[in-house]
């Protein structure tokens, strides 16, 4: 068994409004003069899992995303191996 590390990036689906992101985008544009085209706020979840292989570890991470970590109604996710 070894330890595998992942970062899960969770974003709201792009057709949904992201009021927090919109606010920050506006602040950056208006108060900091940065020409931001798009800004969306999501979250990152860092996990370490113990598994026999990297494939098994990936499966475990996928399972936890689908079981709990991600709400498929409104969110999408990507898993990055670290």
């Amino acid at each position, binding site marked *: 068994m070894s330890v595998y590390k992942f970062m899960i990036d969770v974003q709201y689906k792009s057709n*949904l*409004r992201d*009021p927090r992101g919109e*606010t920050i985008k506006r602040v950056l544009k208006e108060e900091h003069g940065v020409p931001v085209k798009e800004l969306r706020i999501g979250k990152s979840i860092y996990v370490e899992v113990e598994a026999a292989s990297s494939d098994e570890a990936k499966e475990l991470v996928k399972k936890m995303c689908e079981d709990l*970590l991600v*709400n498929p*109604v409104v969110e999408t996710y990507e898993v990055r191996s670290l």
Partner: protein
Amino acid sequence: MKAAVVVYPGSNCDRDTYHALKLTGFDVDYAYFFDQDLSFEGYDLVVLPGGFSYGDYLRPGAVAARENISRKVKEFAENGGLLLGICNGFQVLMEMGLLPGALLQNEKGKFICRWVDLVVEDNTTPFTLAFKKGEKIRLPIAHGFGRYVKVGEPRVVFRYRENVNGSDEKIAGVASESGNILGLMPHPERASEEILGGEDGRKVFLSIAEYLESRGAEK
């Protein structure tokens, strides 16, 4: 009339809901998250109260929706039991997939606690019998994640009269197609006594009582 108020870790309107149900004449029990032998057999109504179940640390209602007690709640509703989710309870119902849509962070990104004006869109559910269709009512809201996002065409029961949190079509509460499950962001239990500023919320509990009595009479 027997009601159970579910207490998740982090629920904080459980005692308020208990009090309001008692005032309306229900026999009420708490259903605690730590009670392994919990059963909803013999209950007419199960309420998921407001609060911050599991701290709302992942997404509001997400963790609660997937634990043991929620499986029993689901079973209860699938067998036709009356299930009411208020605020965090509504969020749990969404996460359980018992009601359509999602509840996201308020448009302005801030928690809002205030009385709001609503209209009753559907008075044919067991939870809204005592209202008139189109009745204008006032209830308190208190939430940070109450922006209803529509998926499909939900059965809308309550609508805000003004835009308070950016909800699609100002939706404040929806029911299941069968009508035995209602979720709403406003707090009827906080509007159950005149001294607290209004009694419109009490009518939700009175509706349930009326419905149960008429159903009992049919039997």
